[in-house]
């Protein structure tokens, strides 16, 4: 047994040295100014035209999707929606910096990452309309996407739970020698959960190749960041866990891209976690159930609207000469049509079979669920009008 000495690295002093907040400056990485021009001294990451335009299109697509789905919710076509307006760069550019075989574990406001991976409009709609084509079999509320083929873990509502899970997932990847990392997205609100503490500490101690990506968008529903924590954002916590940390302007796609790319490299090479705090703003309402006028001013929102991440990146892409106005217009028009069409298609698709009410609780259906299902079918047969979604199939 080697002798251990938990004091070996500690220096000493004879004066009462109070360590205060603000002792470390954690600056925010920013490459583009608000007009999309490269800042003095900034070096743009290597980004191909293809990647850049894919990032841009994904952001524009998602903004459109968000708008259309909020409208669909208002029309009563879906029960719930949650937009990521203002945060498109943070999620799109970080996803772009990953490899396809990296696992994404998200909170719920990262639809852009999923879209970047190639989730189709039809797939989005099937989930949101809880129809039989939804891979979740219509069991979860709208926006709780998940797709095994795309390495995007199914979203679950309880906040923060994915954080220690991501550490475990990454540990498994490492153990099996996969050249892959896990990225774990969460909000600055969720970072108050005990699971955050557990997840980051375990990842640090157990050397898990996981990227903790915090979207600090200033709010957790109505609760402003200043009522969420008293330290210097989420980045300052990295120090306490001994986790390498990068703070980045979340509205600057270029900065997010390079930060995530480097984080990925470090995570894989050093077999360790990296924490990224992306500073952004939730321009959207928390969800369609929320009304932000109850807790923040229009002026505040307006200020942030000026920092629009899409426009900023677009200007840069234009500056690179990679932007084709006509192609772009066509893409947007086509996407709008696709979305409208997909809504109409998806809402007509029936829900899953009644058997799917009891499938997947276990690997196979146990006796008591068989009993309950049989009983239920008999009942539905008796009152077909009261169970219109399923009565047809149990006739």
């Amino acid at each position, binding site marked *: 047994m080697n002798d251990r000495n938990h004091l070996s690295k500690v220096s000493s002093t004879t004066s009462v040295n109070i360590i205060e907040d603000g002792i470390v400056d954690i600056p925010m990485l920013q490459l583009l100014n608000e007009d999309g021009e490269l800042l003095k001294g900034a070096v743009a990451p290597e980004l191909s035209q293809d990647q850049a335009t894919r990032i841009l299109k994904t952001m524009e697509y998602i903004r459109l999707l968000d708008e259309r789905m909020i409208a669909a919710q208002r029309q009563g076509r879906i029960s719930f929606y949650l937009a990521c307006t203002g945060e498109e760069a943070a999620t799109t550019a970080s996803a772009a910096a990953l490899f396809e075989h990296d696992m994404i574990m998200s909170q719920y406001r990262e639809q852009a990452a999923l879209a970047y991976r190639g989730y189709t409009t039809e797939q989005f709609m099937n989930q949101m309309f809880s129809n039989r084509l939804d891979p979740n079999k219509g069991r979860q509320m709208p926006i709780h996407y998940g797709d095994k083929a795309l390495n995007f873990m199914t979203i679950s509502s*309880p906040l923060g739970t994915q954080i220690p899970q991501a550490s475990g997932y990454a540990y498994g990847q490492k153990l099996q020698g996969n050249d892959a990392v896990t990225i774990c997205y969460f909000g600055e609100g969720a970072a108050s959960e005990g699971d955050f503490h557990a997840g980051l500490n375990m990842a640090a101690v157990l050397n898990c190749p996981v990227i903790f990506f915090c979207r600090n968008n200033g709010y957790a529903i109505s609760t402003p960041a200043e009522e969420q924590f008293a330290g210097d954002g989420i980045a300052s916590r990295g120090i306490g866990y001994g986790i390498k940390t990068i703070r980045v302007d979340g509205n600057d796609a270029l900065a997010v891209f390079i930060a995530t790319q480097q984080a990925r490299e470090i995570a894989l090479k050093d077999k360790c976690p990296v924490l990224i705090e992306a500073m952004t703003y939730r321009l959207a309402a928390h969800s369609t159930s929320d009304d932000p006028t109850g807790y923040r001013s229009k002026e505040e929102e307006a200020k942030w609207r000026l920092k629009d991440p899409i426009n900023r990146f677009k200007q840069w892409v234009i500056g690179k000469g990679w932007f084709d106005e006509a192609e772009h217009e066509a893409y947007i028009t086509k996407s709008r049509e696709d979305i409208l069409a997909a809504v109409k298609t998806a809402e007509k698709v029936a829900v899953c079979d009644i058997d799917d009410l009891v499938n997947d609780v276990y690997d196979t259906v146990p006796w008591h669920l068989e009993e309950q299902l049989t009983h239920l079918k008999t009942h539905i047969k008796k009152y077909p009008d009261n169970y219109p979604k399923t009565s047809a199939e149990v006739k």
Partner: protein
Amino acid sequence: MAKMNLLQAINNALITEMERNEKVVVFGEDVGHFGGVFRATSNLQEKFGKDRCFNSPLTEQGIIGFANGLAAQGSFPVAEIQFADYIFPAFDQIVNETAKWRYRSGGQFSCGSLTIRTPYGGGIHGGLYHSQSPEAYFAHTPGLKIVVPRNPYQAKGLLLASMRDDNPVLFMEPKRLYRAAVSDVPEEDYTLPLGKADVVEEGSDITLVAWGAQVEVVQQAAAMAREDGVSCEVIDLRSILPWDAQRISESVMKTGRLLINHEAPQTGGFASEIAATIQDKCFLYLEAPIARVCGLDTPYPLAHEKEYMPDHLKTYEAIKRTMNY
């Protein structure tokens, strides 16, 4: 008297108690300035200041841990858990701490002044994580009281009683009634007793027990059964822990039949406790097996929510089966 919905009745009870007892402190996620995502705590911060009504950081285990300490200190915390589905991170603080505090300290300290409010239940297209009814998880925990109101009048009286009771109370609010249930509520102060069931309708053929939003479901079924000439005694249990076994027994001794309805999955649900106790206390009186009409033993679904729920039709059918046994 004023017409209030369930949320307004709760808000009214909170105001009543905060005025009466300056040691009452209300907090939870978004309960401050915004007044809670359901607005049950509207205007409290304005009226009583930020010290007595405030947002907490997003941590249920922290909220209840903090509330436990505050209660042990002598304040009267009313902690909100935004949805009952999110109470589980606080399970340790509730089950190992809140509930056992008085016992383990020989009565030196306690969390008797604590009230935990949380909206629960389905029927709102909420899927797995906005629909659960976790009362049975807590009912296995000596030291806790669990209270569920069925309408605004009950809500105000029971919540006031809960805040004043010298035991920690988990106060579960049927959220699908928040705005749907409207009734006359006295503007003055009043309390309703904890631990006592409430006979909502008298009857002689079968006893129907439910709580919260399911009481009206059971009443609907009772009305259908009445058409068939079956006289149902409908009882709102109101307190899940300790529960009023005496009142239920008396009823079953009269009717000879018992049906229990709840939203939570059947296995290990609180209906099992009622059935186990009543088959023991009323063995010789029972003319048919005690029926349970509950949620299925699955996570709470979305597309098949209607099929999952123990609705009035399933209850009506079970009444008939029990009558014809």
